[in-house]
């Protein structure tokens, strides 16, 4: 029995180990556990900062088209191309007025030979130019929101194929899923886009109306911050159940506005407390059962020992 064991010794030992622990933690510090995400983020921001210099550069939609750098020639015209057969849609985000050239290209190995080509926007036909034997292009000067929309090229020979370019304002990222916050807490909504917006505005839905947040009293309940031109942050303090609802953030670009939606639900603390208490009760019951079973089996063993 280590009766001579001193607590001073234990304290000294624990301090030493705590020091070692802090050493370990400091080693881990500054090194994020998942650096590749930062790598990818920083790569993306590099690409985007380059493309932001050229207004209205291509943003590919992963579902419809492979990553391809556009803008092959001069800084005045942005060029976008779809090769058929292949993904037949492309989403192009344009923030400010720009001239774009949309090219439909036919792959050499395709079966279609010498097709008849038409370019259409909606029902309106647009005249095109034949760039090479297998590619046809149109030029669009986008100066306002009326020039935005979907431009389709139709190639008709033995069969008809088509490709569509969707020109639109840059999308704003919100949250699709409802956001949960608690009474008395703060709700934070962050709106991001890939381009620099001219202005940001926030709205709240009241019934069917959209009310600007700036106009709601009291003023210190809402905090709007714009850490950069491409990001906006709304903080709602001292939440109550009345704050449940839909919030909108709107980014205004030269070519129009773009909205994102946030669904905020304010819950009382009693909501998570119910499953919490249920689990704690389950733990308590299990621990008690195990302890009682152990006492019972020990008593049985003793009784068996006594009888044998």
């Amino acid at each position: 029995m280590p009766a001579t064991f001193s607590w001073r010794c234990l304290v000294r030992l624990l301090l030493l180990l705590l020091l070692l622990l802090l050493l370990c933690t400091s080693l881990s510090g500054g090194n994020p556990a998942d650096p590749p995400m930062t790598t990818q983020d920083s790569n993306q921001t590099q690409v985007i900062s380059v493309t932001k210099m050229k207004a209205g550069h291509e943003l590919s939609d992963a579902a419809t088209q492979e990553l391809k750098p556009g803008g092959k020639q001069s800084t005045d015209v942005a060029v976008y191309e779809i090769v058929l057969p292949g993904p037949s849609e492309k989403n192009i985000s344009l923030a400010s007025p720009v001239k774009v050239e949309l090219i439909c290209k036919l792959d050499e190995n395709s079966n279609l030979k010498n097709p008849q080509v038409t370019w259409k926007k909606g029902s309106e036909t647009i005249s095109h130019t034949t760039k090479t034997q297998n590619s046809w292009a149109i030029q669009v000067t986008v100066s306002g929101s009326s020039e935005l929309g979907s431009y389709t090229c139709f190639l008709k020979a033995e069969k008809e194929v088509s490709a569509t370019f969707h020109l639109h304002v840059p999308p704003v990222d919100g949250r699709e899923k409802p956001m949960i916050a608690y009474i008395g807490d703060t709700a934070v909504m962050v709106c991001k886009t890939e381009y620099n917006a001219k202005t940001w505005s926030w709205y709240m839905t009241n019934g069917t109306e959209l009310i600007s947040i700036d106009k709601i009293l009291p003023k210190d309940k809402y905090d709007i911050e714009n850490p950069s031109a491409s990001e906006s942050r709304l903080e709602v303090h001292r939440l109550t159940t009345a704050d449940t609802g839909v919030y909108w953030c709107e980014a205004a670009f030269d070519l129009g506005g773009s909205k994102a939606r946030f669904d905020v639900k304010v819950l009382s603390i009693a909501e998570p407390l119910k499953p919490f208490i249920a689990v704690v009760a389950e733990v308590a019951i299990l621990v008690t059962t195990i302890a009682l079973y152990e006492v019972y089996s020990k008593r049985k063993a003793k009784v068996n020992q006594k009888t044998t």
Partner: protein
Amino acid sequence: MPARAEAGRAPGPPDGGWGWVVVFGAFVSIGFAYAFPKGLAIFFKEIQDFFGTSYSEIAWVSSIMLATTYGAGPISSILVNRYGSRPVVMFGGLLCGVGMISAAFCTSILQLYICVGFITGFGLALNLQPSVIIIGKYFLKRRPIANGLAMAGSPVMLCTLAPLNQFLFDNFGWRGSFLILGAILLNCCVAGALFRPIGPGPAPVKTQVTEKGKDALKGKITEDGPMENKTEEEGEKDCFEKVNQYLDFSLFKHRGFLIYLIGNVLMFLGFFAPIVFLAPYAKHTGIDEYSAAFLLSILAIVDMVARPTTGIVANSRWVRPRIQYFFSFAIAFNGACHLLCPLASSYTGLIVYSSFFGLAFGMVCAMLFETLMDLVGAARFTSAVGLVTIAECCTILLGPPIGGILIDTFGDYKYMFIKCGAVMVLAGTFLFIMNYYNYRMLAKEEKERKAKEEDPKSVRTENEGKKNWNQDSTQDGPELEPLREKGEGLKKEMNGTNEA
């Protein structure tokens, strides 16, 4: 000591019965310890937005938690040596619960570091070590199976926690989720309650407990063997020697332990990085997010099956005596997988890679602690595991960041895979060669010991202090003896039990 003489005839570790319940408890406990930090990643984006911090500041939470879980190993070992597994695991579970519950009310990122990082991390450390230790106390012959089953807790818990965390987050936000997760972590207390204390052999502990009432502690100290006699002889000892009672630093003179330590420290440099980078690598090759996540699911499922299977294979009579070779092979196989990964560029290739990676990962994890137990014996395993985890702590934390740096400098993932593969193949080869040498030395020492036994001199040399303890410890290696030389039968079994 008459009690010890009786111990020679007492049965060894139960190898069954309540032991399987203990394996279940260890399954839960180890599962939480390994899977919980990984499962928290779902909340990070939301917390990052809430506090307005950068991604790396959030990643600190994970790093601190991991560092504390591994770094607090020695503290865990000391507490287990002093109090036994059960109180430590229950206290650890309580600490985890308290940590997460207080995290639900945090108002700054610094408070999150403390609550989630330190407190919960420390609680998980108090869960992990004792669970592994108590398996060594309950099993000998079937220990690899028990280890494999217990370690399978990690992928199972991860597969359960990931969708559970997503569900909690969608319904309760991050604060509510932390509150409920705190309650869920209290289930570690339930696992701890199952860890009935067991001595080196039921007979000596029982007689002493019934005779001397609350001297259950003495039963634990008999495990430390000669150390106890020292306490009785000397009055005032200096701090270092007292420390040695609870954390056996003399392990650093143990050949097998040193081999294991160096090999493992090397291996962990390349162990976790591929998992961290698998999904980003898949996205980099153009695969969409859901398919990339599916790769990790395949990995987890194969891992789940591989661990108990490896346990069963390692327990077979062909592998068990040479289990160190099997371990080295598993590590080298793991490294080979990583070296071949850059060749897989299509999605099917990556699926094949994930399956083999899951298999290799499971094999290594299942035998991680089994091989250490095999080398140092169950008695000194308590201290060994604490010392090993704090040494591994550094390389585990360095692995992914080094991989990240490689990816950033070269812009290509293949160098990271090559680095991980090379490091692991190197570690595997090192362990293979050194264990070959170790087995030969052990065989030689065994021959010398047998030659001495022919002498009428008493074999019970435990009373002569540290020097003979070293001798005994080298006999710990051949716990495989009961299995290898069945002809020697009972006598060897007794030897194995004595050291246990």
